[in-house]
């Protein structure tokens, strides 16, 4: 559970609810609703990372969108450094976005195929309209170097890169405004195992280097275990269990958490016989 320390948390999500109305099926009577989130609360402390684990339909992607203020909640608040993001006036919200950025799941869809890498990476800066073109290019170069890509990659197009490299470009884009919080929605699910390892190491290094907090959304328990200090297990729009990963995975209390853990296929450490 969230600990009330002297320092207020970086991100505070309180009783977040999101219901969607579906198209009407009958002429009279209320339209059916999808109850994507039914009251979710958690905190992210500065410099620490929180993982949100769940399967499809659990509401975890909805949490990501609401935290990033890409969608408005039916009720509940999302506060970054004490300010409720959904009540901020537009201009203030735009400048506040400097502090929180997002990395998306699909490395093939999250980069505009018609723009150069330099332009893609500099987009968050360009949206803030505070820096000159030259400065943006400079910072883009820095961000690319931080993720292990070269300055010569800046004028190339996304299709010239592999999935892992594209994900690095997406991470560079998220880093460029030097945010305090990065929301990563399944950042490595679409990647091969060896590439996944490289990107996870990179994310870990960036965390240590820049003190970034991650809100990591994933269905993969192992990935969450690797990067996060705290884990929330989401099921049908509610958090059913929460705690440090080591604790949670070893002594899971809630039946759903146990089901999740049991379902993960294990590799034998000894030489046990397998079914023929």
């Amino acid at each position, binding site marked *: 559970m969230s600990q009330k320390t002297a320092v207020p948390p970086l991100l505070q999500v309180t009783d977040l609810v999101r219901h969607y109305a579906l198209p009407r099926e009958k002429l009279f009577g209320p339209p059916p609703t999808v109850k994507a989130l039914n009251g979710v609360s958690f905190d992210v402390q500065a410099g620490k990372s929180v993982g949100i684990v769940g399967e499809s339909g659990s509401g975890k992607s909805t949490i990501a969108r609401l935290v990033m203020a890409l969608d408005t909640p039916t009720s509940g608040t999302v506060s970054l450094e004490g300010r409720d993001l959904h009540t901020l006036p537009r201009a203030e919200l735009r400048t506040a976005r400097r502090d929180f950025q997002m990395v998306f799941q699909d490395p093939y869809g999250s980069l505009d195929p018609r723009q150069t890498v330099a332009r893609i990476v500099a987009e968050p800066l360009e949206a803030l309209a505070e820096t000159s073109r030259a400065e943006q290019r400079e910072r883009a170069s820095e961000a690319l170097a931080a993720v292990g890509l070269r300055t010569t990659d800046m004028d190339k197009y996304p299709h010239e890169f592999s999935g892992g490299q594209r994900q690095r470009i997406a991470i560079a884009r998220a880093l460029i405004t030097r945010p305090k919080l990065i929301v990563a929605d399944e950042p490595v699910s679409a990647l091969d195992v*060896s590439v996944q390892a490289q990107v996870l*190491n990179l994310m870990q290094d960036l965390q240590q280097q820049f003190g970034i907090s991650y809100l990591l959304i994933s*269905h993969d328990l192992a*990935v969450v275990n690797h990067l996060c200090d705290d884990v929330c297990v989401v099921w049908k729009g509610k958090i059913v269990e929460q705690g440090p990963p080591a604790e949670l995975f070893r002594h899971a209390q809630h039946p759903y958490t146990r089901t999740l*853990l049991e*379902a993960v*296929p294990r590799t034998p450490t000894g030489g046990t016989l*397998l*079914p*023929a």
Partner: protein
Amino acid sequence: MPLLQVKDLHIELQTQRGPAEAVRGIDFTLERGETLGIVGESGCGKSITVMSLMGLLPSTARVTGSIRFDGTELVGRAEKDMCQIRGNRIGMIFQEPMTALNPVHTIARQVGEPLRLHRGLSKADARKEVLALLERVGIPDAASRLDAYPHQFSGGQRQRIGIAMALACGPDLLIADEPTTALDVTIQKQILELIQSLVAERGMALILISHDLGVIAQTVSKMLVMYGGSVVESGPTEAVFARRAHPYTQGLFAARPAIGAPRGLRLATIKGSVPELVDLPKGCPFAGRCSYTVDACHTTRPPATMLPHDHAVRCIRLEEIATEVAAAP
């Protein structure tokens, strides 16, 4: 006689930068009732290999070598003969349950299609068979859902329907290409258990492709590790998991994050990235990325070294690697 015998299979594809070998001389055999897993990352050639078994490669692909299925040679076989085999003697389950089913046909029609095509069943008879199949794969309330459309089912159920379709004519060989990758982990477990029980029940042979070592460990008794179009390591699953002789196999195992591992641990990575097909080295495909590479690795294709328990590895530096690994803390 083994059910499936693949010898020296080479497949050349047309890429944007010219022709490239996607599969470079692989061999394996499969007996009736045996389960084989193929593990590898994107671009290693695993999907292309099984597509060649079904004769589903693009027309610009060139296949050389031999694929003997129950004694008949499949390489170079006429399309109309391959149609007799597909869906009838070899069934295939695909990765994406969303797109593997035709959205405008009912499931009764789709699952019944192989029955009507290969067995010549009438619509009514096929329908009865379909009902039995759907009940076997665990579709709840199957009788009332025969005329439903794919979009009315969940992802896991659609994959079950796909399995029913693959099994309809009682094939001797079932190929499953990443059947659970697009599914949630709890559904994955159910689907894998279903496949295992069906395979055991009907005495089918199974080829399962996955990038997930855990899935391979729990489902198949023999495995192949593929990289850059070659089989770098093969053998009984138990032996390969225990011994992990090839550096690529070691890299794959080391790169996975594990539940319960301490925090702050850096994952061991394989340096570099998978080169494009046209850029693969002439000798061992892993040369350059492998930390044990020597000059000879770039030029000569490593021959298969046999280890105990029918465990084959293609690497010329096995002994040195084994001593280093043993010496490491």
